[in-house]
């Protein structure tokens, strides 16, 4: 007995089925045997007896099902059985399984990676307390939107009932910080009272500045960033010993902010804005953020602020041009313009997934001819269709689960690489990671994917007509593939084409921006930024002499051809702008003109061409150089040389004589469009100078100059911090976010293309295999293999062409979404891109179908005939 038991256990293990199943089978066999014996005893022959016993027994499958039902543990058992069965089936065809897993993991990985970007950048709440209650407030007036001034901010804070707290922030830019490590320029920001409490952010160490410390005449104190505290204060926990020097005074550090904290600006040092509160009501220099009182809506607060601002406008008359206020939720301000590009990325990832699913669905259908027979047999034995469909779906879920895990791993790699490569290009990018939320989403996507690609084949394979497959012997016949397959190929191709068009448009737009003639050249130009700390020099003359000596030192560095100077470089966003005024009447002529302090060599250093006249001479006064756009606006057509211009930035009554016209149309943001510019000698307005940028042009690599220049400049005075950047690098980072999105989209498009091509190749190769008989016969009858080959290819390429057409149509329909990201030179229906994608895809499809089609030559006609 025990020996039989032992064999039974081994047998069960071999068959890999559950014990209950085995026992049920054995019970059935016993029953049939007994019935047979009884019939034989009644006089039947053994064969008759066996047949009749079986007939009497009835439907085995159904009875088993009912018994399983009665057991009540059906669900779990079924699942376990389906999983085991599915795993076995997949193991039996490794090449299919591997291909399908790789294909799906590409799609799922793409979606997971895109989602972690979207989640990290857009969806995760901002790192403030109750961030949805924070809004940014701006002034609205004269149909323009302004940053508020300090006096207006104070009035708002006092008069408005809608906010439990309001803060004003002003960036001062990079300022010299001394006596905390080596002298360095760090970004400094001024903040008003109750900064941390309004934002709902507790300090990492210490406390916020008190009201007494944030008032006129208070002793200088500051908050510092976490990075500053660790790298420059040695992570000193006793803040009484933490201090630094800036603006000529010693600052005591009273608080350290949490790591990664920022509000609108990156800053390392936060000082008290209300020690020197701005007094000019029309100086639009602060950003204001307010926390709404609980329960109040943004609309209601907006209305109240409009009323408050209108009253202020009445009271203060011409002092302020703010008529109403505009409230915008803070997350919209910070992240709003990332929504479109990230949304497009997400959609593109979805498309890649769809292509992958279509691919796998087609392959499942292809394998279907063999499975069909199996399904037909089981159906005729009484298995319900629903059961079979569920089992097939379980296989799909298994595939998708493995692919999901692989996809998550891929996504993790991709995200790591992306974060490292593009940390400056998207806000909060450095906090993006593949976290729990993303993994859960990934699992959900995998499950959905399983249904997406598995349901249709499962339904088709278990159709009632599948019984035909049994009868016809299923040797493949002429193997007409049927419309379903053409549809799948067409769909795959269409999706891939949409992806390619989208990526193509973005890339073209990017390249046209890059090659845009901004009017100046960045190649070989090194930018050195310098800020003189307060108190370094005793007089303005001393400071000027130093600034000039620095220029001379740089000019004498070997390799430097030209040195120009200016308070702002060509890519700086913070240029001054003032209303363009008619020089005679002084009235505004509409539009704003940039106002830049530069020296005479600025233009040459940037290779800006001088259209007319000349540049400044050293020491010249009351002169200006204008750009074409401004000249056209003021004196259209007439010679600007010798005419006069005025600006708000000069004292009343000061006029400047135009000595030259330059051809710089686009200045700081390369694709910002035409901008009117006026250039003024820097030595005339020392009061406006906080920092100086030196632009040194060299023939070779700008980066090579950094070492030698730094040496010479520091030799003059090593307590004055300087910073270097190559103009080419600055150009690149100004387009970093576009480039980031475009390159990811291009990667997705490439992935989609490859998947579609693999799909096409697969179909061709399968067709050849299926139609071996037909091909063999035709070859034996003398047909040329090349003709047969091209016929097969043509058949496959038909749905491909249809797919390309559908894809182009779809791309044009969806073009509206991408439009916002494109540079104006490239329209969403750019014919070059559309034609290019079509040619590329069809060419690639031809190639992809060529290789498998060659296998027709491998069909041995004699061998096929012998099989008949």
């Amino acid at each position, binding site marked *: *007995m025990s020996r*039989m038991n032992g064999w039974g256990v081994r047998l069960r293990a071999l068959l890999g089925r559950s014990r209950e199943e085995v*026992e*049920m089978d*054995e*019970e059935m066999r*016993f*029953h049939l*045997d*007994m*019935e047979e014996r009884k019939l034989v005893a009644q006089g039947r022959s053994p064969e008759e007896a066996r047949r009749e016993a079986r007939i*009497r*027994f*009835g*439907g085995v499958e*159904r*009875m088993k099902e*009912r*018994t*399983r*039902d*009665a*057991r*009540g543990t059906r669900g779990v058992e079924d699942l376990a059985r389906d999983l085991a069965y599915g795993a076995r089936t997949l193991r039996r065809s490794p090449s299919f399984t591997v291909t399908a897993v790789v294909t799906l993991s590409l799609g799922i990985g793409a979606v997971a990676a895109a989602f972690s970007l979207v989640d990290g950048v857009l969806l995760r709440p901002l790192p403030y307390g109750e961030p949805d209650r924070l809004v940014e407030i701006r002034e609205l007036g004269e149909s323009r939107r302004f940053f508020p001034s300090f006096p207006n901010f104070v009035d708002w804070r006092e008069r408005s009932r809608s906010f439990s707290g309001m803060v004003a922030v002003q960036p001062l830019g990079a300022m010299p910080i001394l006596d905390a490590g080596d002298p360095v320029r760090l970004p400094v920001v001024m903040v008003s009272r109750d900064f941390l409490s309004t934002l709902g952010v507790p300090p990492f160490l210490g406390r916020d500045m008190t009201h007494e410390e944030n008032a006129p005449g208070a002793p200088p104190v500051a908050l510092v960033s976490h990075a500053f505290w660790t790298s420059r204060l040695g992570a000193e926990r006793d803040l009484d010993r933490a201090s630094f020097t800036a603006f000529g005074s010693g600052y005591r550090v009273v608080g350290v902010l949490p790591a990664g904290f920022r509000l609108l600006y990156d800053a390392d040092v936060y000082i008290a804005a209300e020690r020197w509160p701005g007094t000019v009501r029309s100086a639009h220099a602060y950003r204001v953020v307010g926390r709404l009182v609980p329960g109040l809506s943004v609309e209601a607060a907006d209305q109240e602020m409009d009323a408050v601002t209108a009253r202020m406008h009445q009271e203060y008359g011409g002092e302020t041009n703010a008529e109403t206020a505009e409230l915008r939720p803070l997350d919209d301000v910070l992240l709003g313009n990332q929504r479109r590009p990230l949304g497009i990325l997400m959609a593109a990832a979805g498309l890649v997934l769809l292509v992958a699913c279509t691919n796998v669905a087609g392959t499942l259908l292809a394998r279907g001819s063999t499975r069909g027979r199996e399904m037909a047999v089981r159906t005729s034995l009484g298995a319900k269709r629903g059961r079979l469909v569920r089992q097939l779906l379980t296989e799909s879920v298994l595939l998708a689960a493995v692919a999901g895990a692989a996809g998550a791993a891929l996504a993790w790699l991709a995200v790591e690489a992306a974060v490292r490569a593009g940390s400056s290009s998207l806000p909060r990018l450095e906090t993006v990671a593949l976290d729990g939320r993303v993994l859960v989403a990934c699992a959900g996507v995998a499950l959905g994917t399983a249904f997406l690609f598995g349901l249709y084949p499962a339904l088709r394979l278990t159709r009632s007509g599948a019984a035909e497959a049994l009868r016809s012997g299923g040797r493949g016949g002429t193997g007409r593939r049927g419309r379903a397959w053409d549809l799948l190929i067409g769909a795959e191709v269409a999706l891939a084409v949409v992806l390619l068009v989208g990526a193509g448009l973005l890339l073209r737009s990017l390249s046209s921006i890059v090659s845009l003639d901004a009017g100046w050249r960045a190649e070989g130009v090194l930018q050195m930024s310098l800020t003189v700390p307060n108190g370094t020099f005793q007089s303005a003359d001393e400071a000027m002499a130093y600034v000039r000596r620095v220029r001379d030192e740089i000019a004498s560095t070997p390799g430097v051809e030209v040195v120009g100077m200016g308070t702002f470089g060509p890519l700086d966003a913070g240029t001054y702008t003032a209303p363009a005024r008619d020089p005679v009447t002084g009235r505004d002529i509409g539009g704003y003109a940039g106002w830049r302090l530069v020296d005479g060599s600025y233009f040459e250093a940037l290779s800006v061409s001088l259209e007319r006249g000349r540049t400044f001479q050293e020491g010249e006064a009351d002169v200006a150089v204008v750009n074409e756009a401004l000249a056209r606006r003021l004196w259209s057509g007439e010679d600007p040389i010798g005419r006069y211009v005025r600006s708000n930035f000069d004292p009343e009554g000061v006029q400047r004589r135009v000595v030259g016209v330059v051809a710089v149309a686009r200045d700081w943001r390369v694709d910002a469009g035409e901008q009117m510019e006026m250039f003024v000698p820097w030595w005339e307005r020392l009061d406006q100078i906080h920092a100086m940028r030196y632009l040194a042009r060299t023939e070779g690599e700008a980066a090579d100059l950094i070492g030698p220049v730094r040496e010479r400049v520091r030799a003059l005075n090593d307590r004055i911090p300087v910073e270097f950047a190559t103009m080419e690098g600055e150009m690149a980072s100004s387009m970093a976010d576009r480039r980031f999105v475009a390159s990811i989209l291009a990667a997705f498009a490439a992935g989609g293309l490859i998947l579609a091509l693999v799909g096409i190749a697969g179909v061709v190769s399968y067709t050849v295999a299926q139609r071996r008989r037909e091909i063999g016969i035709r070859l034996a009858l003398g047909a040329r293999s090349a003709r047969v080959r091209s016929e097969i290819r043509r058949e496959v390429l038909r749905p491909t062409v249809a797919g390309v057409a559908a894809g182009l149509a779809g791309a044009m329909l969806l073009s509206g979404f991408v439009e916002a990201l494109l540079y104006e030179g490239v329209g969403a229906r750019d014919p070059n891109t559309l034609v290019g994608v079509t040619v590329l895809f069809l060419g690639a499809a031809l190639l992809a179908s060529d290789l498998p089609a060659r296998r027709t030559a491998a069909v041995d006609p004699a061998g096929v005939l012998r099989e008949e």
Partner: protein
Amino acid sequence: MHMAEQRSELLQGTLELLVLRVLSLEPMHGWGIGERIALLSEEVFRVNQGSLYPALQRMRSRGWVRAEWRRTENNRRARYYSLTSMGERQLAEAVSEWKRTSGAVDRVLTAALSGA
């Protein structure tokens, strides 16, 4: 043995009652239970195996019968079912319930016949 002209369908509850009764006589395997019922009912009931095994499974799940593999007289392996104590109680209840309902049906039928 005479073969019945008609084969009657057994209601699920009635089948279980009969199986419990048969098993109360002695433990038996599935085929044997079917034969026994046929014998005792004088061939009125020919149990459909499609109903018998699911019914046995149900009764196992409810704890009325237990199953174990044993050797038959011919030394073949078969699954024998036997009553548990719960099964015995269930049998007693089912019998009294059957007597009640069938008695009531009887009365209705005879009353109709004679009351007219």
